């Protein structure tokens, strides 16, 4: 009996094993397969060299063909590759690659995990209206014109030399909840000698029209639009003499006087209509220029598209002395609207970043990727212009590397106490030895003002710990990582490397000097520029 049971169990075991073997590789979701097929087709349309280059960049052969054939590659492999779809590489904006990126991201983390539901802006840019007013003052102009006119008015053909004198001004105004540029035209059209011809009669006189019109220019997403100009005019006229057959002149004058009101009304409409057409023409030129400038920023848009950081314009607005733009980026957003305060008079530009933005901006570039100490050293040199001794790669034989966590590699918290970063690594190697646990790194900084600008001072030590609460780092590993990462996140950070580089347009940024950094408990870091003496303030709730 026992042997029978044993036999049956053995048979059952074999059957289960067979079933497992029959189960084969896991099937990939259709959305992923479809995206991979599109990428295959995109590659196939490329010249061979280009195709090879892309496949190398994406490590395509390791996972792409498998996915195209509906087999699901290892999750870890997909996590390690996804960050390569975000970046500055030309071509990443191609729809096939964007789709693949989105499908991978959704599959690995779910959209909800990556894109918080918060809908308020995460980036606020505010300009001082004083500065803009100076610019707008250039827009204001006086226009004089003189022309021969001819039009049917009150049943007569009226001619005359018209002298127009108009002033065009531009002001920032509230426009509903947003801000707009109000372009206003005020002017006078004088026709000192009009001749109204009707049959054998000519009525001589004069006319003066007062006109006023307005149009509003506003930003609709990334396009500048103008409202239909609205004009009003009032015309006053007088009759001086009448030419024509003598016996009927009196009658003709009586007729002219009778139709004067009608003529004035029609004349005013005519003046308003002509002024409106003229302004429309001029605004069309201005809009074309403005939108051309916006289009010229298309290359920046492509860069953002590649990195999945295309902003949505959430708000524009006009406060007491500031015009503001509010933007939200994928993966970021504030839960509460930004509470704007009046700009300090000497502040020209204020940029406010929500804590969610600080994390979102960098996360896509790193999630799932493995960085060696050389990568960290390069990043430090790029940002700070120099390397700490611990990041002189090769100066000591010790080497290390870390793999960024896929889901939440960087998180940031801002309050009045400081800017608090947490970096997460799913795997760490020291001298090619993999540690048994992931790593979490915490560092906090506060901005400190100096005569030359702002520097960031670390608050206390960095916190290096195992990301697994049940696992502790050995003392040696702990000390090693503490030393290396303390060099990476130094006691003082100057961000020297971000100063304008040589060789081109970035020199324009040389005049951009950070003058004030504020941290608020609501999660905002507010950076001002244009102030003579820098200062740092923190604001509690």
């Amino acid at each position, binding site marked *: 009996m026992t042997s029978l049971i044993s036999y049956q169990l053995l048979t059952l075991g074999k059957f289960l094993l067979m079933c497992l073997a029959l189960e084969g590789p896991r099937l990939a979701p259709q959305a992923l397969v479809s995206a991979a097929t599109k990428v295959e087709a995109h590659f196939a349309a490329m*010249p061979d060299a280009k195709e090879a280059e892309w496949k190398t960049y994406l490590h395509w052969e390791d996972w792409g063909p498998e996915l195209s054939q509906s087999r699901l590659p290892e999750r870890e492999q997909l996590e390690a590759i996804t960050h390569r779809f975000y970046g500055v590489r030309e071509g990443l904006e191609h729809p096939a690659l964007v789709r693949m990126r989105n499908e991978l991201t959704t599959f690995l983390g779910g959209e909800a995990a990556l894109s918080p539901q918060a809908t308020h802006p995460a980036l606020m840019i505010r300009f001082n209206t004083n500065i803009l007013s100076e610019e707008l003052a250039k827009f204001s102009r006086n226009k004089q014109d003189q022309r021969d006119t001819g039009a049917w008015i009150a049943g007569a053909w009226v001619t005359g030399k018209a002298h127009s004198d108009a002033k065009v001004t531009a002001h920032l105004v509230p426009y509903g909840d947003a801000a707009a540029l109000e372009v206003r035209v005020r002017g006078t059209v004088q026709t000192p000698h009009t001749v109204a011809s009707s049959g054998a009669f000519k009525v001589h006189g004069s006319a003066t029209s007062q006109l006023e019109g307005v149009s509003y220019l506003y930003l609709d997403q990334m396009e500048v639009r103008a409202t239909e100009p609205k004009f009003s005019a009032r015309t006053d006229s007088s009759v001086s003499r009448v030419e024509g057959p003598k016996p009927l002149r009196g009658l003709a004058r009586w007729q002219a006087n009778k139709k004067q009101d009608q003529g004035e009304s029609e004349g005013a409409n005519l003046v308003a209509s002509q002024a409106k057409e003229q302004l429309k023409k001029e605004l069309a030129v201005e809009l074309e220029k403005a939108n051309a400038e916006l289009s010229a920023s298309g290359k920046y848009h492509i860069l953002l598209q590649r990195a999945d950081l295309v902003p949505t314009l959430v708000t524009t607005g006009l406060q007491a002395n500031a015009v503001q733009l509010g933007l939200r980026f994928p993966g970021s957003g504030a839960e509460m609207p930004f509470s704007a305060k009046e700009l300090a008079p000497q502040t020209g530009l204020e940029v406010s970043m929500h804590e969610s933005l600080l994390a979102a901006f960098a996360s896509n570039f790193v999630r799932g990727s493995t960085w060696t100490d050389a990568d960290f050293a390069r990043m430090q040199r790029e940002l700070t212009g120099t390397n700490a001794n611990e990041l002189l790669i090769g100066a000591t034989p010790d080497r290390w590397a870390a793999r960024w966590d896929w889901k939440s590699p960087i998180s940031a918290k801002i309050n009045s106490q400081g800017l608090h970063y947490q970096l997460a690594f799913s795997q760490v190697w020291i001298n090619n030895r993999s540690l048994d646990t992931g790593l979490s790194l915490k560092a906090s900084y506060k901005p400190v003002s100096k005569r030359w600008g702002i520097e960031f001072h670390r608050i206390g030590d960095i916190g290096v710990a195992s990301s697994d609460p049940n696992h502790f780092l050995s003392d040696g590993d702990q000390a090693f990582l503490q030393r290396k990462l303390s060099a990476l996140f130094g006691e003082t950070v*100057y*961000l*020297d490397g971000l*100063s304008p*580089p040589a060789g081109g347009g970035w020199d324009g940024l040389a005049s951009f000097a950070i003058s004030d950094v504020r941290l608020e408990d609501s999660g905002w870091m507010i950076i001002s520029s244009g102030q003579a003496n820098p200062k740092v303030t923190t604001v509690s709730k």
Partner: protein
Amino acid sequence: MHWRAAFLVILLGSSAAFAEDSKPLLRDIYGADHYYDEFVEERTKAIVFIMLDDQCPVVKQLLPKLVELHKKYNAVERDRAGHPVTFEKYPGDLVQMVGVYTKPSQSIKDIAKHALKNRIPFRVLRDSDLSFVKRFGIKRLSETIVFSRDWKVVYQGPVDDQSIQGSTKARATSRYLEEVLDAVIAKKAPPYTRVPPVGCLIDLDQETETPKVSYSEVEPILLKRCVPCHREGEVGPMHLTTYSEIRDYAAMVKEVIAEERMPPWPVASPRALRNPLELTPDERETLLAWLDSKMPLGDYKPASSPVSTRAKGSRFRIGNPDFVFEMPEPHTVPATGVIDYVHIPIELNGGKGFPEDRWIEAIEVVPGAPEVVHHIQVHEFHGKAVGGKVDPIEQMLHYGLSVENARLLGSYTPGNVEENARFYTNFAPQGKTAAMKLTRGANLILEMHYTTNGTETKDRSAVAIRFAKQPPDVVVESWFPFRKRPDMVIPANMANHSLQDRYHFGGLTGGKAVLVHGVRPHLHTRGKSYRLELIDAKSMQEQEIFDFASHDRLRGEVLLELPIWDFNWQHFYRFEKPIVIRPDQALLATAYWDNSKFNPRNPDPNSNVPWGQQTHQEMFNSLFNYEVLEHGDPRLTSKSE
């Protein structure tokens, strides 16, 4: 000192109302002359002239003391940007210290070398005609003369009493100079007015018999060193191709050779450099002897014209290039004025660049109008340039935020025949091939420095390239690190401001060693000098780079010094034997700026000069050509490299 003598000295000093033309002139390291009584600034209380020399043992012993005295009176606390903390605008040195050299054989370059080598922080000048020492009766090296702000002689004599004629005491017991300066600053009577000097005698009669040299002996030197630039169609301002042409400018030729201003080679390198432009000591002596001895023609027979530098059958030295890229349009150089750098893009393959990486084995940069082309730098270029402005986004994508990945491919400097036609193949060891990469998709951009010559001229310069057929054994890399600080300031009126940067190649190579072939330092017009050291990377902490007080400290082996920074002559200096930099080593660059009114090249001493690309701003960077050495490369252990 006897009171009568003191009275006499004071009397002499107070009668310093010389006519301008009889007032002693002193020459600075740039070749500009200064009246001795120019050296006073807003804050100055006293002016000290010290007679210096590179050999006199008394002077040698004195130098560290002078450095300390300079620090005592003039050191100011500076913030991280370099701005003096206690002044909104630096009002100049409290005690102006001026070193004066008198030896006839010393060129101004020698003087500048001596000052940089000994980290002398104050101004050094040359009393070329000994008018200064004669005017004030100075007899010995190391002697000092102290003036009050109103140019009355306050003290004349030694710095202290440590040196006695022929011997030295263990320590000084009377610190004459320091005590005098303390008294002057405190508005008290100086405790000493005259003390007999100690030190080597200054030779006041410098007439010597010059050896007889004939024109036949100097002509080959002239043909090799001077004529390549000073001839028809070249940038040299006067022609020096015939005896009579040289005779016309003999005084000028003598001056610039004696002072080592020509040929332009403002470098002093302990490590031998390839293709030095400077005269050898023998050549210099021969030329000066000939110029001093009334330029005898002797039994001269006309020699051939300068040796052609072109390959046979080709207009280029690199032979027949695969590609010649010309500027798309001629650039018009006006007749007069000073022209800032011009950036001219050259499109390759219709602006798309080559579809694949290519390997440059030789590159030659040929000026279209050499008479107005001062120098050309050829960089790899990605993106568009409109009106000489490079698209910043494109630049960031290819060169990084810091632009450190910018790549210099070749260059042209007048007279630098070897580097103008650069054979990267020569960078490889025997039996190997070497080349520099031209990245796929790249175009070229020419950084043009033009000079005006009185005639409006059109230039259409060209770049000729020979590509290797195969990828090379050795890839020559380029690195362009910046000391880039938003807070960098060269403070107004500061005569000896310094900055440092440490270049470690490990981040580029993943911790491997490199072989550095050459370097091109870059500063702007206020630059004074530059030094490059090979150091133990971990021997200094990062924060020490920002410690201004420690910049004078030598930390390793000096590889290269530019004692007189000359914005006009920015050479690429290539080491005869390339330098191995191990992963535990780094290069340390130190640069000095003179933003005082006494720097004749300073466009505005009253401005606090920020970092910036324009020449009226300042930059500090070094461009390296290097190759990566793999582990086990025999050159890692070879001392000769």
